[in-house]
């Protein structure tokens, strides 16, 4: 209920906001009636309010019911903004903060709410965290409606449904679940909705915050991929996946994600299939290299020297001459140094990162070898490992792989190759045991799905892929009809 006295209402709201200076209120008197206008300067566009709203209010001075006249007047004059009425004073802060103007009058217990949002977003820019050579260049922004628009623009089907909910007691963040109505598995949508509804926290500021609530099982490698590319998002929507968009966050979440999704790149869909397959195999090799190289080096150098050819062994042994540290410590030391370098490179402003790379390359690389603190081969191992890890785009995935790499190093420094093999068994068991919303993390490889394997490690030509991946959704499996 709203009191029928604009004066009191304004006073109340001012008190609620603690007399914040950006709360702008006007009490307009026409004949015997009072009209109250409330808006937040900081989040609304002042010129819209003065040009349209205030003018249309002041013109009214007859005896008809004031509230209805103003509403009709605005409705007939302003077409491109949301306009509706609310009857609960508790909703005021939400609309004010979202950039709405609220009009209250003497003769009604309702309030008119009119959108007068200020443009506080940056424009649509190129994707920075997931660059691609041959793909569309736009990326999601902080504006929720723009993000939805970027998806709508690409899929012009009425079956693309958006379900919105507000999460966070204080932030009241808009979170939209997007899915293709007749493709996505509705049970999965229901489960996700239930999970999101259970969240009761003061604020959700980023889609990354939601990730923890949506995960089902503990795992180091993230089970939910995030992306800032609308083209990937739409591709996944068409495959039947469910997308979660969060207000004020350019990263969306893709559910369910399988392991192979991290190996695919945005370019893959647009390239010749054989080249895309080749790059995917390359990326798969890079994954294995980045996981295992330091561990294998430690195993070879400290336990299983008989596994490598003579010349290589002699070369390694001569390089290690005079190095004071054990191989294990040497590797750990330099892996740590590299991780710190990478972290500082991400965090530091761009004009200081050159200094960082000079220190990294010259001081830590060349000088450390010359001073025989580390052997050259260690530098090579660390370099190969880190370059291979940078191929992947999802930073959470890279960090997950890093944790596993350290586990592999640890096991190989204890048991040599036997340690690596046992750790690999644990790794594979862990991966295959993961499941999200009834789709296995290692699908379509295990359980094997031959039809879905046409776009897994090897990508077939597009005219030959007829079905959507069945591990995502079993509804409406036909993606393409063959006309031949």
């Amino acid at each position: 209920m709203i009191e029928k006295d604009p004066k009191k209402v304004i006073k109340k709201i001012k008190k609620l906001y603690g007399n914040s200076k950006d709360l702008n209120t006007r009490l307009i008197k026409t004949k015997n009636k009072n009209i109250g206008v409330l808006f937040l300067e900081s989040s609304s566009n002042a010129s819209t309010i003065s040009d349209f709203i205030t003018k249309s209010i002041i013109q009214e001075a007859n005896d008809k019911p004031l509230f209805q006249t103003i509403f009709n007047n605005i409705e007939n004059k302003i077409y491109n903004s949301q306009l509706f009425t609310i009857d609960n004073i508790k909703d005021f802060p939400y609309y004010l903060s979202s950039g709405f103007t609220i009009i209250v009058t003497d003769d009604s217990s309702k309030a008119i709410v009119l959108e007068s949002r200020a443009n506080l977003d940056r424009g649509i820019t190129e994707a920075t965290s997931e660059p691609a050579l041959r793909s569309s260049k736009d990326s999601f922004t902080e504006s929720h409606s723009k993000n939805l628009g970027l998806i709508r623009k690409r899929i012009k089907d009425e079956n693309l449904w958006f379900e919105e909910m507000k999460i966070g007691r204080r932030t009241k963040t808009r979170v939209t679940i997007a899915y293709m109505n007749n493709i996505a598995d509705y049970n999965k949508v229901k489960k996700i909705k239930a999970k999101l509804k259970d969240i009761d926290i003061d604020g959700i500021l980023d889609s990354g915050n939601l990730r923890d609530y949506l995960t089902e099982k503990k795992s180091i490698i993230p089970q939910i991929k995030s992306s800032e590319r609308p083209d990937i998002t739409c591709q996944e929507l068409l495959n039947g996946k469910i997308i979660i968009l969060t207000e004020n966050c350019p990263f969306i979440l893709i559910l369910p994600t399988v392991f192979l999704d991290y190996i695919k790149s945005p370019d893959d869909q647009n390239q010749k299939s054989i080249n895309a397959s080749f790059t995917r195999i390359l990326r798969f090799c890079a994954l294995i290299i980045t996981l295992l190289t330091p561990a294998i080096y430690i195993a070879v150098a400290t336990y299983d020297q008989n596994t490598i050819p003579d010349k290589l062994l002699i070369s390694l042994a001569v390089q290690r001459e005079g190095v004071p540290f054990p191989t294990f410590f040497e590797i750990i030391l330099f892996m740590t140094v590299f991780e710190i370098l990478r972290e500082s490179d991400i965090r530091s402003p761009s004009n200081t990162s050159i200094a960082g790379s000079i220190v990294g390359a010259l001081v830590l690389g060349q000088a450390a070898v010359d001073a025989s603190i580390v052997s050259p081969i260690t530098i090579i191992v660390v370099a190969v490992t880190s370059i291979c890890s940078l191929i992947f785009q999802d930073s959470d995935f890279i960090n997950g792989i890093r944790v596993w790499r350290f586990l592999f190093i640890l096991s190989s420094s204890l048991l040599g190759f036997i340690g690596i093999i046992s750790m690999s068994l644990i790794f594979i068991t862990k991966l295959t045991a993961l499941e999200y919303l009834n789709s296995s993390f290692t699908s379509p490889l295990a359980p094997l799905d031959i039809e879905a394997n046409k776009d897994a490690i090897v990508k077939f030509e597009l005219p030959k892929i007829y079905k959507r991946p069945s591990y995502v959704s079993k509804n409406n499996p036909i993606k393409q009809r063959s006309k031949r």
Partner: protein
Amino acid sequence: MKKYILILLLLLSGCQNYSELNQLAIVTAAGIDKDKGKYEVSVLIANSPKVNSSNKEGEAKTTVYKAKGKTIGEAIKMIELKSPKELYFSHINCIIISDEIGKEGFLKVADYFMRNPETRNRFYLLQIDKGKSSDVLKIISPLESYPSQSIKTLIESSQTSSNIGDSASYSNFIGKTIQKGYDPIMTTIKINGDKDKGSKQSNLETTEPNTYLSMGPIAIYKNDKFKRLSSNKETELIRVLNNENKELNYSFKYKEKNVNMFSNMTKTSIKLIDKNFISVDIYIKGDIFETDSNVNLNDYKEVYKINKKWQKNIKKDVKKLIDKIKHKWKCDIFGFGNMVYKKYPDYYKNFKLDKINVNVKVKTEIISTGSLTKAIKEDK
């Protein structure tokens, strides 16, 4: 509780055979000699610290350590006392024995290397032609960037002309020794030049090396005991019969002028026809490599005659070799007895090497006569 036991298991069982690379002395070759009734073992260590810090990884200095003992194991223990690092045998390339060891029987020595789980059985086994085997290890080869690998490279590089690698391998030797009706052969190695000069760094600095290593003739063994050396010509033919020669260079007289034939394909099959009858088929394909006769090679009849002569000469030599083996050496290096044993195991008791009939068939083929059809300088 289970978790702690698991972690404990890892920590207690792990690190057992842990050894850092720079604590290992990688042995790439070993020599075994006999000195005053004791075994003298010398090992070549590949990764001694570099003399002056050079950035090329290959330029490691090599070191030879030597020690004596009643057994091989004892001698190696003595070396470990001298060497600052732990000896690591898994990358051993070749073992060189002296003829004294060969005469005593090689199997006594082999026991240590076969029993040691560290060594791979994929190294070469060589006998030194003359002198002490430890001297071979000391020779610095000018053409090899890894000095420790020079002997291995020598064996493997001669594989383009002949496939010695197979017959020089340790497992092949042991395999033949153990089999019934087989006598093994061993490749020999020779030091050319002064052995003392060859062990100095100065050997690398001269254009013409003072000392170098080369492959020698074949040592014929009876069981595991060394009997005698073959001559150079016999060596080549033995390799042909063993299917080891890829290239055969053969000279003979035709119309009192020299003809040199070069073949790059020889194929031999030895078959058991009957209990007492073995046939040896040799097929050789080659070119006329060199000649000083003015025979008109455009005339196919002449070429045919040369071919016939070539064939006859080879046949004669092979027959001579087999007769020698049967009657003089009495060493069954081609495994005739083994063939009989495999097919007629009951008859094998009565098998005698000098009783067996060997039929030699040689087929030769001349592919081309080269770019010249006549000798350059004709008789006027």
